[in-house]
């Protein structure tokens, strides 16, 4: 809990203040914002976090903010809160990947349950994110030719197929491939393909 942060975005300043007090009394670190723009302007530390987000906001509403966050790579689980609790809205929220949808007013218990769930998801997300970044860093060390070989290997091509595709000797491919394995720190080909999948590299045969 020490190394986590709860964001609250609600245009009602009183709600921001009340939630901030409530969460702080529960030992959380809290940042509140009264608009989506303010939240987006904030520099998000890479720690466990979740966002308590009001759906009705001026200019950019909660759903729109969720989309913008996805585009900008701001990854944090969202708990929607709203004073207009209707079912279609909650379905939309859940479909968009929200942790929960809490109609106002909600109890501390409900909120804390949702936060616990959100933070554990955030932990997994952060871990995945860190791994992806590590893989990407390793990929950056590959030469263009090695990257190409990595691509083919990820698609399950055999060395001789790669050689005929590239128009080079089998021996050259073996050397490239060895370097790819080494630079990517992959012990097996399966692991290498796993890396490719994680960074969203195409793994389907051409």
């Amino acid at each position, binding site marked *: 809990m020490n190394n986590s942060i709860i964001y609250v975005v609600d245009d009602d300043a009183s709600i921001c203040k*009340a939630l901030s007090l*409530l969460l702080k*009394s529960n030992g959380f670190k809290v940042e509140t914002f009264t608009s989506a723009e303010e939240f987006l302007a904030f520099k998000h530390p890479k720690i466990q976090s979740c966002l308590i987000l009001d759906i009705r906001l001026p200019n950019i509403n909660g759903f729109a903010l969720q989309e913008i966050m996805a585009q900008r790579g701001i990854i944090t689980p969202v708990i929607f809160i709203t*004073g207009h609790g209707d079912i279609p809205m909650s379905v939309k929220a859940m479909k968009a990947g929200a942790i929960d949808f809490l109609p106002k007013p909600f109890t501390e218990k409900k909120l804390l349950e949702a936060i616990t769930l959100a933070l554990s998801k955030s932990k997994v997300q952060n871990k995945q994110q860190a791994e992806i970044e590590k893989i990407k860093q390793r990929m950056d060390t590959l030469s263009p030719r090695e990257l190409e070989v990595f691509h083919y290997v990820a698609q399950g091509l055999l060395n001789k197929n790669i050689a005929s595709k590239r128009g080079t000797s089998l021996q050259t491919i073996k050397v490239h491939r060895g370097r790819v394995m080494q630079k990517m720190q992959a012990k097996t080909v399966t692991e290498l393909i796993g890396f490719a999948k994680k960074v969203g590299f195409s793994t389907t045969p051409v």
Partner: protein
Amino acid sequence: MKIKTRGNLEEQIRQGADREKLGADREKQGANREKLAEEQIQVRTKAMESTFDGIFIIDAKKPNFPIIYANPSFYSLTGYSRNEVIGKNYFLLYGLDDNSRIYEEIKKTLRQGKSFHGEMLNFKKNGEKFWSLLRITLVRDKNGITTHYVGNKTDTTLMRQRDLEIAEQREELLHVTRVGKLAEFVSSLAHEISQPLTAILSYAQAAQRTLKDREPQVQEILQFIVNDDQRAAEVIRRLRSLLKKNKPTFEPLDINVIINDTVRLIMPHITAGNKIVKLDLDTSLPYFQGDRIQLQQVILNLISNSLEAMESSEDSHELIIKTSRKGKEMIMVEVKDSGCGIPEENMKKLFAHFFTSKPDGLGMGLSISRSIVEAHGGHLEAKNNPDQGATFYFTIPVNLKNDL
């Protein structure tokens, strides 16, 4: 005709022959006239026999005022046969029913020497009810004495029924509008109240957390606050679920039909205000999926707003409703008035809940209209016209994407 005498015999003879000819001519003329009169009577009788209105004639000189003539329409209208009508008193035909007051009224009017005009509920011979418009006029002789009464009876049942249907539709629409307004009002109110309730609940629970095991008395008070906050929340939840019931029903609709129906419903309002509505409808528009009553509500709301905007001004009286195609995917509806227009400072707040520029307005009409249009996947906007008045316009997609 005077015939001059002259000395000339020849002349006399000629004149005599002429006289004879003249006499023959006169005879012929008389016969012609008779024939003509007969023809005229025939035509008039036929006309009377073929008209849809029931016509009857009462002999006013006989003591019991018997019916001496009735046309076929009268028989088919009342269900009585000739034998049951001719020679009978008109009022006896209907026996004694709750309409006797009207009959007294008719008798009184006729006795005063005035003609009668009125609509009433009648019964056919078989007891079937029908509405009729009755007019009785007096026929007088040279001395001004009433000799006959001529009655003219028109069946107005269908017209009545149509009027009744229109009134019912209007009532239904008004009811839905009232319920809709109430629902939107409660929903907005619920939102406004749930905000502070959320804050109060969180403040109280934060205080409980902060105090932990200290101050048991204050803890208890805080718990009371939490409990009552949740009680208020429960009231709001129940109110909301109560109003969730009227869900929109989507069906294929023709926007022009909706506009025509709505205009017909509020025509009395329009004509009473001395205004005119011009329809400029694109008849080639496709059908779209929508809720008929809800969209009628939107159009009704826009029309009544426009009428109100034109109320104060004498020279503005024209309202134009236009439908058109906007691109492939959209239908556009415009309601253009020549009223007072919208002050610039109100433009932004126009569609907000509780915003109104009318002294007795709730400020719900436009915000409901906008949420209805948006629920149909469209947009409702307003603008001032370059010359005079304002235009409210909205779009509706032809193919509503099922987003939810």
